[in-house]
């Protein structure tokens, strides 16, 4: 019986994380898949959301900024808004840049966010982080607490999916995809390219902020080392590429597939004897990297191909049509 309960709890935990990652992957799909914006700072927006919600909901402790005691219905939207605000500031400056410059800039933002969280102890608790974060429904007994939180996450994920899918099919979605595929043509037809790209970036970042908040409340703790920031960013990218960028369905399925692999393989490797169990995570990370390379090479459109262009390219300087490209143009 205990074993059964263990399995059910594991399944609940698995599904909860899949729901959270599905929201994150959908956010990245809005940024990269639809709008063509290269964000490698996912963890930064995630952290801003996590800390904002943690600070707004916890009681005063003296170890970090707090004492607002707000309920999550206010704190989560606030977390999204703060992540969105940061994204807006970044986008205002960097959105016109070539995609790989934007990627470097987002790495920088994530790094700055990390430094602030680590150094500004009065607000964030420094390396000790913030603990005693409340989790909705945690007063319920037995597995009901987990189930109720899971339902909340899944409901949010479903809502996000529905919004993202309506957005993709809306006139707005068609315009941002047109910009992704051919920026100059979109500009020539009078679209405000910068404003639309900023919108895509901000919306995606708000969703990442939401997942940060969800994670902080789910783990009841957040600290600079609570999550390996680079690993989060990497996993979300692999989810989107494997699922098929440009497709919201792909993002969600990619999240489900990759997280299931990630989590169940952990379950298996945790039974390995001592030293091997410590090192297994690195083998798993390496293998996820290989999966990424394999999909990039063999399934350019991802496993959930929508027939749409999978990888936005924005040739900045089209070579004259008569030249042969040995190298990728841009």
């Amino acid at each position, binding site marked *: 019986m205990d074993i059964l309960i263990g399995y059910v709890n594991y399944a609940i935990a698995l599904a909860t994380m899949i729901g959270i990652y599905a929201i994150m992957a959908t956010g990245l799909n809005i940024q990269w898949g639809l709008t063509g914006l290269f964000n490698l700072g996912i963890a930064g927006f995630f952290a801003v959301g996590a800390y904002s919600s943690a600070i707004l909901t916890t009681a005063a402790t003296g170890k970090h900024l707090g004492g607002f005691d707000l309920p999550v219905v206010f704190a989560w939207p606030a977390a999204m808004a703060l992540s969105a605000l940061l994204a807006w500031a970044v986008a205002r400056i960097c959105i016109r840049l070539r995609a790989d410059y934007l990627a470097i800039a987002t790495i920088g933002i994530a790094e700055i966010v990390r430094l602030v969280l680590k150094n500004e102890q009065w607000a964030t608790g420094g390396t000790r982080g913030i603990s005693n974060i409340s989790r909705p429904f945690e007063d319920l007994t037995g597995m009901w607490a987990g189930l109720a939180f899971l339902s909340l996450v899944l409901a949010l994920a479903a809502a996000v999916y529905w919004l993202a899918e309506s957005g993709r099919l809306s006139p707005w979605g068609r315009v941002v995809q047109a910009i992704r595929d051919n920026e100059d043509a979109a500009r020539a037809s009078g679209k405000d390219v910068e404003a639309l790209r900023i919108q895509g970036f901000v919306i995606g970042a708000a969703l990442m902020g939401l997942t940060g908040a969800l994670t902080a409340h789910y783990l009841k703790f957040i600290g600079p080392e609570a999550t390996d920031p680079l690993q989060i960013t990497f996993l979300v990218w692999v989810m989107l590429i494997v699922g098929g960028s440009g497709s919201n369905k792909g993002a969600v399925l990619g999240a489900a597939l990759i997280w299931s692999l990630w989590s169940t393989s952990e379950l298996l490797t945790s039974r390995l004897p001592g030293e091997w169990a410590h090192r297994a995570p690195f083998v798993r990370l390496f293998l996820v990297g290989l999966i990424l390379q394999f999909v990039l090479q063999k399934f350019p459109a991802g496993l959930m191909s929508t027939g749409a262009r999978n990888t936005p390219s924005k040739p900045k300087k089209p070579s004259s049509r*008569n030249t*042969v490209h040995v190298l990728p143009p841009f």
Partner: protein
Amino acid sequence: MTLLSLEGLVAGYGPDVPILHGVNIRLQAGEIVSIVGPNGAGKSTAMKSAFGLLNVHQGKILIGTEDVTNSRPEAIVRKGVSFVPQTENVFASLTVQENLELGGYFNSRSHVAAGLDRVYSLFPPLREKRHQKSGLLSGGQRQMVAMGRALMPDPKIVLLDEPTAGLSPKYADEIFKLIIDINASGTAVLMVEQNARQALMISNRGYVLVDGRNRHEGTGAGLVRDREVAEMFLGG
């Protein structure tokens, strides 16, 4: 002796949609041959196909008697054919001399030294500017660097894509004179020119392409006098 021949060439930039629909062109030793025709006739395309820059669907390309159909440009250069593209034909951030040295990339050191002497005596202005960045040169001088680079390996054949495009009439005249000099030194020249009348005047023979097919061929002077050719695009 036939140095280069395109036989019944059907070719395009991709695996489908041909631009050339059966083109025949021959270049004999010692000749200057021009390919002329209206815009979009496939002149440049025909010449580039000889250099391995297109997908050949049908027909073949021979250098001498060797079949080089669908060879890569790197391989064709080594068979004694050089190509001067119309645009982006110099390494702008490299000096004049470095551009020329790269022209002899696969030649021996002594060969390169001899090549430099030959090119500098053909284009004396380049010797003075040899340490300048070629991106800073005037259009005409840049064209000289491009032609000089192509001549460095002492090729049997030089292919010129619109060598006078964008140049003032004075510079264009000079380039045409240089083409005669190059030819006189024993290199056969195949060129595509917008400036058709002048090009045909210095050519032994010419081909008129229309819509990716051969329309006329004849001696350079003969084509200039031809009424139909003149009406079509020589401007009366």
